[in-house]
């Protein structure tokens, strides 16, 4: 995958430890503009930690991560708060547990970022938020509170909230893992639309069908390392690493 542009996310030899346990063991990868990169692997393999390092929710002890040509963290040092906040505005984050703000209406959840951080006037921010709600199929929920929504609806609002900041890359941390099975589809549908529109995305997921269909690159993690990466046809069709094969066998036979 050659690109004339700089990668949006560039990780070099990222190391993260929790106590004695090495969660990420010199991980390197790149995400090019408009690329969809899906990270799969057994639980505890470091997928989520790697994703969380990409907006400094976790701070790696060694290595470097560059986002949109700005060094986010290098050798265990995160850039100063001001620059960090500015950089985070360009990186949308979607969590497994949604993390919507329960005291704000759906509309306010989406507009609070643009209004307070980008100083967008209320009317303009609300018009943009309504358009985003339309896009995720929740136009009628603008005035609802998160507590009244289903899991799938919450996650779609969370995606709209992240998109409202007009990010250059979106990070998804197991976005459907907390959902009832019948609600997974509606969230994946929104993510597919985003991918089709050319959004750069880095996604941790257990949805193999989705990975196969949407990913440009699939990275397989195990024991804190990327053990294999390549286009989905290769990873799912002819995995070269035996650990990839046993992971896929276990996951796919289950469903």
């Amino acid at each position, binding site marked *: 995958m050659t690109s004339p542009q700089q990668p949006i996310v560039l990780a070099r030899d990222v190391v993260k430890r929790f106590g004695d346990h090495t969660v990420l063991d010199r991980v390197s990868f790149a995400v090019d503009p408009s690329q969809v990169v899906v990270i799969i692997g057994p639980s505890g393999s470091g997928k989520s930690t790697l994703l969380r390092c990409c*907006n400094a*929710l976790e701070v790696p002890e060694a290595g470097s991560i560059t986002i949109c040509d700005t060094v986010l963290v290098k050798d265990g040092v995160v850039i100063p*708060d001001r620059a960090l*906040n*500015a*950089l*985070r*505005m360009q*990186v*949308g*984050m979607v*969590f497994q*547990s949604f*993390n*919507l*703000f*329960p*005291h704000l209406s759906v509309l306010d959840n989406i507009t*609070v*970022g643009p209004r*307070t*951080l980008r100083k967008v006037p209320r009317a303009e921010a609300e018009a943009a938020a309504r358009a985003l709600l339309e896009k995720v199929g929740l136009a009628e929920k603008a005035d609802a*509170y998160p*507590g*009244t929504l289903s899991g799938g609806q919450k996650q779609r609002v969370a995606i709209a*909230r*992240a998109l409202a*900041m007009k990010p250059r890359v979106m990070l998804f941390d197991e976005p459907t893992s907390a959902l009832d099975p019948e609600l997974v589809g509606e969230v994946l549908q929104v993510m597919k639309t985003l991918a089709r529109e050319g959004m750069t995305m880095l996604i941790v997921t257990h949805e193999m069908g989705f990975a196969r269909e949407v990913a440009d690159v699939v990275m397989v993690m195990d024991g804190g390392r990327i053990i294999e990466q390549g286009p989905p046809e290769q990873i799912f069709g002819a995995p070269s690493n035996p650990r990839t094969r046993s992971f896929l066998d276990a996951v796919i036979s289950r469903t």
Partner: protein
Amino acid sequence: MDLDFTPVWEGWRELGHGALVTIEVTSASLLLGCAIGLLIGIARLEPKRRLIYGAASAYVTCIRGTPLLVQLFLLFFGLPQFNILLPAFFCGVLGLGLYSGAYVSEIVRGAIQSIDRGQMEAARSLGMSYVQAMRIIIIPQAVVRMIPPLGNEFIALIKNSALVSLLTITDLMHEGQKIISVSYRSLEVYLAVAAIYLLLTSTTNFILRRIETRLRAGGLVQ
């Protein structure tokens, strides 16, 4: 034994005035206590900021570990040795406010820490600073959770405020004692004083229950 409530009826104006002063002292010290409690509570969120955390913890330890009456006397009778003469009402409010602040700080800290960690992560991920995330996302949610324990604190404060009668403040307790000093009807007057305190605390309790029900109906309290 015969009870004679005549001094109570004859002194209703004074008792009413005393009750008003009690409400004033309590309300003012609750406001002061909340302001102090918010600052101290936030200061005690992060043990890594050693100086701030240590100072705030020392405050809470000293205030909670010594009698309120001693603290009030230190302000009212102790400070004049340094030629600091504070008006009695001011001393009472300051003493009760400082005292209440230590307890409120624990309420504040508990409420903030009970907010899911994901809320701070989501706010910071949008690009908010720590202060913005606290102000816009965390504290508004925490305040709702503070209301029931703050109600208890308010009621405790109403009762504790009787101590300021010893600083010459003419609160409910003080007015009662003045009536006793001329009528010698201790039992009747103290019963009346107790009844008025009970009225104040149960009214407060009732109002707080209403607020809590409203918040629950609005879905803001889980």
